[in-house]
């Protein structure tokens, strides 16, 4: 087992003199293993993971396909529970949370960003953001959708449907949606995977700006080494095991 931890992210924020709104959630995994059933066989997705990410950290997670990156992201994001070990995010022990409590955790603590953006084509950019706000019954935040669109530089595209936006624009809308409930942890699953180089850099710049200005913890899963290099800390997963 390995214990890898850092407070570099927080330290860098403070050192650079940014006004950190509040500290993000610390992530702590101890002996986390997870597996799936495939027919009669058991496929181990994660094996005995020991990881500690400090509050306000900026961490990249890399590895080949099937290494367990998305599974780890799913566990931290509360999309499923680990089958063994302990996983805490801030004050939340995710193995102990029931279904509704996990949904509430995802609503209030996590901001998800997906490779395929995960925007609802039925709704405009503004409505996608407002829907996420309404999930937490935050009407005040709902009113902030336009501010968030302005923050990601897409106010003029507020009423456009996702299908009318470029890939980079869609991902920026997804970032705005992820921020609407003021999460303390942003989980980005291959956020630049479907973007060209320019759009990818703009999205990363935006994510990093959000991370610094809001002080939230940022965990990015990526194949791209260039993207990973921008993080304060980098971890590599291979065959479900965490490498140095």
């Amino acid at each position: 087992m390995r214990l890898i931890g850092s407070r570099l992210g927080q330290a860098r924020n403070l050192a650079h003199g940014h006004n950190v709104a509040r500290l993000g959630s610390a992530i702590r995994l101890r002996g986390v293993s997870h597996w799936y059933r495939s027919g009669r066989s058991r496929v181990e997705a994660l094996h005995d993971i020991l990881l500690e990410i400090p509050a306000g950290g900026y961490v990249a997670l890399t590895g080949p396909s099937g290494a367990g990156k998305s599974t780890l992201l799913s566990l931290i994001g509360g999309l499923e529970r680990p089958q063994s070990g302990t996983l805490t995010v801030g004050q939340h022990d995710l193995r102990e949370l029931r279904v509704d409590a996990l949904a509430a955790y995802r609503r209030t603590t996590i901001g998800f960003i997906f490779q395929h953006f995960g925007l609802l084509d039925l709704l405009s950019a503004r409505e996608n953001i407002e829907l996420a706000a309404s999930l937490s019954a935050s009407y005040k935040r709902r009113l902030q959708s336009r501010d968030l669109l302005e923050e990601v530089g897409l106010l003029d595209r507020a009423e456009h449907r996702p299908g009318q936006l470029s890939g980079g624009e869609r991902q920026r809308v997804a970032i705005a949606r992820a921020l609407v409930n003021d999460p303390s942890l942003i989980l980005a699953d291959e956020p630049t995977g479907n973007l060209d180089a320019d759009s990818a850099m703009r999205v990363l710049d935006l994510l990093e700006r959000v991370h610094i200005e809001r002080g939230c913890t940022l965990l990015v899963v990526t194949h791209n080494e260039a993207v990973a290099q921008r993080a304060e800390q980098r971890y590599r997963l291979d065959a479900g095991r965490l490498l140095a």
Partner: protein
Amino acid sequence: MTWLDSLTLASRSLRRRPGRALLTILAVTLGATLLVALASVATSAGSRIVSKLTNGGPVTAIKVSASKADSDQLYTDDLRAAGPKAITDATLNAVRRSPHVATVIPVLASRILAVPPPFGSTATSTSGAQAFGDTMVGVDLSQTHNLPITVLAGRVPHPGLRNEVAITESYLDHSGLSVQSALGSQVEIAEPQAFQGQNGLQFRARWVRANIVGVVSQQVGSGALLVTIEQAQLAQTWAQAGVDGGAAFPLPDSQYTGMIVVASSLDDVHAVRQMITNLGYANTAPEHLVASVLRYLRVVDIVLAGIGAIALGIAGLGVANALVAAVRERRREIGVLKAIGARDRDILRWFLLEAFAVGLVGGVIGTMAGLLIALWVGVSVNTYLTEQGLQSIQFGDVSWPLIGAAILGTSLLAIAAGVVPALQAARVSPQEAVAAA
């Protein structure tokens, strides 16, 4: 997620697949159309048939005669009279106080001589051949809705007025007048009185001229004229002031010649008839006939309801099928929504509202179409009846309870059909969001 958000998602989901939404709505529409059309036609036809059986009066009306009942009275719908038996106010009060009795309306019939226009003929000089002996039926006309009276043209006399009269088709036959020419004309009525004159038993009359205000078909009593009970009472008082006219004109010995008793419900008719028979009065009501017809109508209703239910069931399957397909298509969207914090009930509500919208739209359109079809059926049937020289039947009555029940029913059916797919949607794992990416 608010209700408005769920509604927005539901409506836009339907608009995303307009072809599928249209077909699903069409299935519900057809089901609702069939059910409403069948129910409307069946209800309308049923009520008209019963109405015909009861001559326009309430189905629970019992006609009582100022006669003694014979021992078989209760076993037949027909009047089984066995000699006279007076009906008085005391009789009316006794019946009124009995259980299951809703209304008691006295009837008073008087023998008269009617003289249609042109006037000039008299009781003793009927060379004009217009004068004819008949009966004038008096009844409380404020209770027309409780009486077996159907207005064919014009109206019934205003209650309390003694110068108005409604005529029956019998009057038209005797007078040779048409409905149009009779309406608004006048009739002279001779109310007879027997007296002992110098030459023995003689007759004289009290003459009344009345305006004909309507043509009716009535089964209150046998007579060509329908008048207010006050007018009939004046005629009786006049006749009673004379002497017994023998077989030709016996002195009235009963305060009323009959009464109409309305039972509280169809189930109570038999009990009320039994009570009246026990009081000794002959009576008649289409009790057995109506019960028999209603049983047949009930069978027809069940068959038609079964056909409608099958149609709605198919519509429900259509809704369920469309939603199952939608759940399969939207697994990623549902996963994303749950990943960003949507609860199971948020997803459930989205899909149930979608089902409800389909049911509501289909129900509204189907109900309107069903009513139009019922109307069209009515017109076609009436055209046929008229061609056959039969009296038309009024179809297409707008039944608001039926409309409400149809729209509500199809909406609830659609929701019920959407429950299983909606539960499937609610159980989609939030991992779908990551799996799709």
